């Protein structure tokens, strides 16, 4: 397996990175950002949408920020520990990502911007040639989607990051920087329901850091991850829930690995809101969340099963929140 050649750039500052990106755009040369490389480089090795340029964020100081309320995109998942003041829910979620070895390299930014996954897509080049390519990596053929044939408008590859739903339920925002300047968005608005576009990043823009509310430590959370093996595996379904203990209106639930984006289920939670946790119809709420997601057949476990599990995972996440009370 041979990685296609590319030029690696090492900008030393945000400004340099942004101007480098602008320069490449100006020359019409494609590039990818790279942080830990545990997602983009395996894809390159499989010749999945490789680019001639790769810009590393490793040398940008701001990208390494790490405190309770600010986590830079270059922070390795292994550094998300209580000792570093990180919220326990994020510590728990990070500890469930991939394996110990991968967490040393894999970063927060990379996990949030994780490429969507699909078993028709995450394959070697020979393999994808044997299916005449797919919509997401069509190699110029205009190939159809292999998951849901006869619709080549939308890619339904699945977002399988663990961190995003957990950041969402804690009320996180992301700071994006690009040629047009800096902007801050709530994390749930960062994602865009399209397996190819994935998020709202404009050309030349990158995710610099995640910002959490000042009172985030008042929140408690629980993350339920469904997977076959307790190491390596991406989530087949994941539910995160959080609240400020005793304050029902603070309850938030988010899901991952069920669609092309992680989703914060604010509406569904609102519809089932109850004054006290003991009065909350956990089963009804879990079923409603289950109803609101529609996984497709492109990961290891069948979509019907993954959807069934949403109910159980939500129930368990809520029990984890309310259990001790």
């Amino acid at each position: 397996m041979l990685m296609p050649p590319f030029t690696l750039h090492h900008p030393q500052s945000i400004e340099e990175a942004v101007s480098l990106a602008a320069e490449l755009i100006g020359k019409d040369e494609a590039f990818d950002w790279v942080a830990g490389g545990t997602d983009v480089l395996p894809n390159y090795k499989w010749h999945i949408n490789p680019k001639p340029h790769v810009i590393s964020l490793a040398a940008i100081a701001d990208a390494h920020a790490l405190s309770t309320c600010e986590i830079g995109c270059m922070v390795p998942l292994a550094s998300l520990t209580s000792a570093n003041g990180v919220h326990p829910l994020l510590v728990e979620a990070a500890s469930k990502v991939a394996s110990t070895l991968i967490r040393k390299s894999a970063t927060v930014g990379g996990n949030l911007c994780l490429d969507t996954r699909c078993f028709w897509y995450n394959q070697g080049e020979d393999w994808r040639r044997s299916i005449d390519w797919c919509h997401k990596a069509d190699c110029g053929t205009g190939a159809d989607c292999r998951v849901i044939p006869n619709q080549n408008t939308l890619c339904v590859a699945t977002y399988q990051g663990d961190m995003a739903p957990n950041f969402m339920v804690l009320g996180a925002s992301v700071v994006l920087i690009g040629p047009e300047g800096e902007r801050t968005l709530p994390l749930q608005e960062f994602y865009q329901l399209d397996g190819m576009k994935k998020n709202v990043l404009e050309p030349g823009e990158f995710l610099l850091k995640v910002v959490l509310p000042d009172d985030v430590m008042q929140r408690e959370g629980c993350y339920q991850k469904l997977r076959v093996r307790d190491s390596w595996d991406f989530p087949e379904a994941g539910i995160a829930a959080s609240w400020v203990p005793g304050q029902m209106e603070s309850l938030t639930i988010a899901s991952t690995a069920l669609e092309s984006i992680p989703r914060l289920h604010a509406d569904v939670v609102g519809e089932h809101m109850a004054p006290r946790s003991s009065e909350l119809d956990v089963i009804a709420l879990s079923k409603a969340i289950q109803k609101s997601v529609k996984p497709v057949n492109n990961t290891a476990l069948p979509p019907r099963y993954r959807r069934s599990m949403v109910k159980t995972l939500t129930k368990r996440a809520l029990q984890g929140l309310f259990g001790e009370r």
Partner: protein
Amino acid sequence: MRSDTMGTYRQQPGSKGSETRRDGKRVAGKQRFPPPGSGGSDPVMRPRDLDFIPETVGGREAKPAGDHIHDRDRTGTTVGKSIALVDSNAKVTGQAWYGDDVRLSGEIIGKILRSPHHYARIKSIDTTRVEALPGVLAVATGQDAPNRFGVLPVTKDEHAMAVDKVRHVGDLVACVAAVDEATAVHALSLFDIEWEMLEPVFDPKKGLEDHDEPIHWRGKYHLARTNVQKRVFQEFGDRSLVNSPRASSHGSWTMSGVHHGFTEPHAVVAHWDPNGRLQLYTPQQVPHYTHRALSTVLEVPMHQINVVRTFVGGGFGGKSDPFPHEMCAAILARKSGRPVRITFDREEVYWINRGRHPSHIDVKMTADDEGRISGFDIDALIDGGGFASFGHVTSYYNGVLATAPYELGSFHYTGARVWTNKPASGAMRGHGAVNTRCAVEVGLDEMAESMEVDPIDLRLANLLPPHSRTISGFRITSNGMREALERVREGSDWDEKFRQMPLGKGIGIGCGFFISGSGLPIHWDPKNFPHATVHIQVDMDGGVTVHTGAADIGQGSTTAVAQVVAEVLALPIEMIHVRSHESDTSPVDLGSYSSRVTFMNANAAIRAAIGIRDQLLKAAWEMLGYHPNVLVLNDRRIYYKHDPAVSISYLEALHKAQADTGALIARGAYRSPPMGGVHKGAAAGLAPAYSFSAYVAEVDVDVETGLVKCTNVWAAHDCGKALNPLAVKGQIIGSCHMGLGQVLSEKMVYGRTGHLQNANLLDYKIPSVHEMPHVEPIIVESSDPEGPFGAKEAGEGPLLPILPAVVNAVYDAIGVRLRDLPLTPDVVFNGIQKHMKTNGLDDETDLSPPRLQHGPLQAPLMERAAEHKERDRLRQRSEDTSAYVNGVLFGFDPNRPLSEQLEGWREADEPLPEQLAELGFAGRAWLKKEQRQMEDDA
């Protein structure tokens, strides 16, 4: 001046210096040659280790299973001791050289063009553009090597590259060698190929039907126009016993294909040396098969080829076929005149496959009023993929390896292997026996439940004894099945846990039975040529060089051979050097498969070592004046039995023995005794010995998600005699890991388009360390009369019982029988949901796990088991040497043919016309006729 220096060299400088004789003449100084050898690095001789010398020859090692012919060859040196494998230092320091570590000067890189189509005819290949690419040094297509090869002489259906048709996605079409990998990869895109698409077959059931274009064509032996590669029918016994059973079980199983998942991908380097000989470096389990196939394909005599086996980074059966890429490398190297290296991507590893067959297995069993297994019907339809590989044997093994350890009233087997347009299945650890074994053991569990008896007691009351014959004529020698069952029952607290644990917690039992070496060497008649040969050479330095063709694939065969030689010669293991890498220097050997190495090679090695020992003892006799019968070997010394002060060192004896002949040479060979029946297929499953095992597994089942976690395993395996207990335990634990993968998470997923969806190690889910239960390995030693020091295999058999033990434990935990492997959470969840729907349950927590109230049959079974225990003890120790054949339990006389005693007794290899209507899936292959029969009809 000493007289013994007469006639030795003069003019030697030395400490003694010159001297002047009395007559005034000066005589040059001289010195004895320093001894050329050494006695090993330990300066202290170790005392005789009586704990490792059998009590039968005066030591303290207990021999409950009786004495053994090799007892008097024991010296207490290494056998039975836990030692590190002799190649472990090379491996843990990263110095072991695997296939891709071979670097020859001037080497170039080969790449293989693979089929993007499931099934297509190649109308033309134009290589003009490839050849024109700068940097490309050789191109080859199927036309360059049209000779067919295959691992079995009866089913040679492979080519180096597709000659006419491609048979699965990933099949080899052409290959190219270039100065570097990037150029070679680029070159692959420049082939211009015209294809004619053919209609592929993916479902093995469809493979039984006639097809316009069968995947292979066998001429007059082809079965109609189907894709059936092999069909088997075997029937033994009296079918009338099956009528009016006390209990019965019928299980229909779907088992996914699994892959070996070895760490090292295939890699090969081919080099034609200046003399025009081919040097081929490859991580092979069976270099000899590659050697033969290369000769056929390249049309070069075998002596012009040297196959060098590199270290093998895991094989498990997946590196025992001769492979087309090995041919490709040799062809490219010949064309380019440069060494060519081909290393696979993981995807290519899955495409060449040879993993366990995806199977549809039906097992029907019945038990009579006395709790005896009266009926035993197996139907196995196995999916062979695009090529035959070992499939001919697998087709038999799926049935015949289920004929023990239980005594059966009748045995009925129909098997069929079909070609499909998928990567070829082949041999994998536990070859052919694993899937049926699982179905059989779960069937027994089900019958025990309906008879209201404990499944362990049911087994204990139905075991074949040591020194008996199975219903199909296999010769059982040593048999530690009973002890294995008793020990796991005790170790796991079975009687306190079985059918007594809360919902979601379960415990289950499974047994296993496996061959210890195949009785038939595939390529020759054992009457004409032995199974294994070992050469030993001892030169002046005292080091012992052992030449064997046994391929160490990580299982420790080199260590086993070194150990037995060290044991016989009473030398530290560091003085034994095993050379097994090159076919130039290794005696012809069948390599590492069918769990034959310890049994066959170690036996041959013992014989060779005895040859060396006898030469040493003869020299010692001359020096000490005592006959070898009263000489004892111990740690680099030979001494008189009754006065250890009368002794010489190993080196002194060695140099004396070498005085006239130079280096000592000896060879030893092993051949299996004649055995087995005469029916068609009688040789399949024949082995000089069989291993037995029993496992108890404990599981936690999450009833809401269907996730199964195996928490504890008690694993008892009868390996005859553990030459190296550490290695045996490693094999047991490793087998558990591999079997757990198959039963819980591993599967080769073929999607709706027939493509293999998970050709990578992320999506092909081999259990991680988190999924690994605590395994308690229990070694049972039944001392096989023909095994080396009593040993039998321990590499494959231990895999079998873990599957049924886990499946039975899941039933114990949730009360739902599941028969789709692997038991991924969705399978378990769906099973639970279906069960709840049938039983009108709303909540998973309302499931009721099964409970056991012993029925009236329990007491008689326990009584019979107790009687049989004494019977087995006497037979094992050869205190009872009467004949015993399958059928004695049913009241027959073992000394007369059963066909004389029982009117309904039938032995058949073809179904009767009236049986055709009731055959299972695989049996339906018998509804078709071979082409030659069709011609006859026409």
